[in-house]
């Protein structure tokens, strides 16, 4: 076998490449209230509700994001330990798609056909979830709270079963852009964008607020190519003093490290997607083999739509921290965990409000009509005509490994509408942390 050594290497490669780098009757009409719990919908029995989700548990997108489904499961466990919802225990089946759209199609069909889930909850990623959104809707499976800020989830005509979750990237771009325009007047600004809808939508929002003359360079990166040296050099040569980034955490970390190498010290303004300080700290350490401290991320301006993880006086933060410490203490207390817990709370809230015997139709109607208001800093946009998630964000600054929120939350639409401060009151969680009907 002339090729045996090569084949051996290849097989070893195969295993290495697959290796991870990180750590349940058709529903029509509305659900009835009162009465005994019955098997009112696929995935719902008298004693259980089964939902599912596709997440990257292995592969390059797994670090950080793989914590989201475990946080959802932890909150479900917490609810089950408090008696469940309408006497039903909640179960979340998580399947790994490795951020590969072909696998997303496979595991989604597996969840729907084999695991017989009631609803999809928090399916993660734009390139992945866009490939199953038609299938889920034509199969009439509620597709609740997609973990992505793509504008594309808000299309109730075409996708009546799909609901977004986080503020879309356009909204984030507008609010960050306004902040830059107000606080860095006349300074040169560069964009550092992921080369897909995430980056493009973000840039669209930034452009609505930042005067064209201030933008001196627009660079994109391809998430499969970790060498961003050329892009950062071009930004440095453009003389930009502020960089607005729509990047995932790994590329925010690379951005910080590349700037350090180039001895270039711009003010970074990073979308909430790529700014979680805990995740960044870990990545900075990993990429620099322990040399770069997490404090490099300090001073970064970002935005958030959930209460700060460092603000333990906030009743939501203290509720979620308690659940984290009890059920998933091994996971870091970071933005991904907060994200999963907040999403799980909101889903359980909708499920509780959908009546004793929810159906697929009734959960959709509930989300559209019951003004859900969970831990978010701003309300949701959910209505008959809109399936978009949070209406806005609040500016924050990274300090000592946590995001410190500044000013007040801002809300806006995904058109050219004005940005307005949100003055409504924040709500508190129920005393036992489990939403009631």
């Amino acid at each position: 076998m002339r090729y045996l050594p090569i084949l051996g290497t290849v097989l070893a490669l195969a295993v290495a490449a697959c290796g991870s780098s990180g750590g349940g009757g058709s529903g029509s009409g509305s659900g009835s209230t009162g009465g005994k719990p019955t098997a009112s919908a696929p995935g719902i029995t008298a004693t259980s509700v089964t939902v599912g989700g596709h997440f990257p548990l292995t592969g390059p997108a797994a670090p950080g994001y793989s914590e989201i489904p475990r946080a959802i499961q932890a909150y479900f466990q917490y609810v089950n330990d408090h008696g469940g919802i309408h006497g039903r225990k909640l179960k979340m089946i998580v399947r790994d798609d490795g951020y590969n759209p072909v696998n997303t199609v496979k595991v989604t069909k597996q969840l729907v056909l084999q695991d017989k889930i009631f609803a999809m909850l928090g399916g993660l990623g734009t390139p992945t979830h866009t490939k199953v959104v038609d299938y889920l809707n034509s199969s009439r499976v509620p597709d609740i709270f997609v973990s992505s800020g793509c504008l594309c989830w808000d299309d109730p005509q075409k996708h009546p079963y799909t609901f977004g979750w986080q503020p879309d990237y356009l909204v984030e771009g507008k609010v960050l852009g306004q902040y830059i325009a107000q606080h860095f007047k006349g300074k040169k600004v560069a964009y550092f964008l992921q080369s897909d809808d995430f980056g493009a939508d973000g840039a669209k929002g930034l452009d609505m607020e930042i005067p064209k003359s201030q933008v001196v360079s627009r660079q994109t990166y391809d998430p499969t190519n970790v060498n961003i040296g050329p892009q950062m050099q071009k930004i440095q040569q453009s003389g930009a003093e502020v960089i607005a980034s729509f990047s995932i955490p790994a590329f925010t970390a690379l951005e910080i490290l590349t700037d350090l190498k180039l001895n270039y010290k711009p003010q970074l303004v990073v979308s909430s997607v790529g700014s979680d300080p805990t995740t960044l700290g870990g990545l900075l350490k990993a990429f620099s083999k322990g040399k770069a401290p997490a404090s490099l991320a300090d001073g970064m301006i970002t935005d958030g739509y959930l209460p700060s993880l460092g603000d333990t006086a906030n009743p939501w933060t203290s509720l979620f921290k308690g659940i984290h410490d009890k059920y998933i203490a091994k996971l870091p207390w970071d933005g991904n965990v907060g994200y999963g817990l907040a999403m799980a709370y909101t889903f359980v809230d909708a499920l509780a409000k959908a009546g004793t015997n929810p159906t697929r139709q009734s959960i959709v109607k509930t989300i559209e009509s019951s003004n859900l208001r969970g831990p978010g800093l701003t309300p949701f946009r959910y209505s008959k005509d809109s399936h978009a998630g949070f209406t806005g964000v609040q500016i924050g600054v990274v300090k000592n490994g946590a995001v410190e929120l500044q000013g007040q939350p801002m809300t806006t639409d995904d058109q050219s509408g004005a940005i307005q401060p949100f003055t409504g009151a924040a709500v508190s969680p129920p005393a036992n942390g489990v939403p009631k009907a």
Partner: protein
Amino acid sequence: MSRTLPRHLAIAVVAGVILWFLSGALGQFNDLQLATMAYLFCGVAGLTVLTGLNGQISLGHGALMAVGAYTTAKVLGDSGTGPPLAVALALGTLAGALAGVLAGAAAARLRGPYLAGATLTLAVGLPALSQRFPHFLGADNGLSVAPSPPPLWLGETFPLERWQACIACLGALIVYLVLANLTRSRIGRSLRAVRDDEVAARLAGINVARTQVLAFVVSSACAGLAGGLLIVVTGVAAPGAFTLVLSVQLLTGAILGGLGSLFGAAMGAALIVLIPQWADDLSRGLNLSGGVQANLALAVYGLVLILLMPLAPQGLMGAVGRVTGFWKERSRGDEPRAESGEELRKEESVR
């Protein structure tokens, strides 16, 4: 040719009938798995001919699948209202073959690790092209194609997944038929001659370079069809679907089944779909925590591959050959083996 064509045709027809009933007996999700095996078979079969019979290695077949997939997706259009599926698949196959001409022309000049390296470039570089033409190829988000529903004459309740499995299996049978005949023909003998000894092949009047390019083209056309069928089954052409892992997976399938054997390729394609599935079910059954569970499936997959290397170094077909050969030897005494003789010679020559 006169006797081999009817024989392969008979095998294909029987396999087709079995697959038709199998696809009906399986559930929708298992039909999807069957369809996945079928399109992977096309890629693995092409690769097993290239590597097993012609001695050329390719780490770039995932990228060639991408060529077929993107072409088919582009021809079909977003809403799937373009020309008939068969035309789109034929064009996808053709695109794969064209890419194979280019890749093969370079490949014929390279040997061993250099060839592996060059084709590796293809696997890494080609899917990144979609970033260069974001409006035409959809960058990271890729292209989506709406599934074409089963024709009405099959009945209104005919499941979509079974229809997809049928198309993919038909494609796989065509690939089988073409490759089985090809490898038993003069061309097949030339492929083996070039693999075994290039100088001797040249002396025998075989144009070595042309044979190598031809092998690459045939193999790439199969990969192109595999990519087209992937579109039929999943509706997805995105860079994330055609990573290096896919190329390596195809090679793994070819090796697991037994290099050079089409039945081996079928077994290999089934295994690369089933082993991860079994490993996942197993690790789920153990009720481990989230992080461990996801990675255990990969570890089990890796372990099975590692174990198969010493236990069945010639792949499953090799192992089957050894077991049946041993049994035949015992029943016949020391008589030379007529049927598996070729298998044995091949093993020796590859060594």
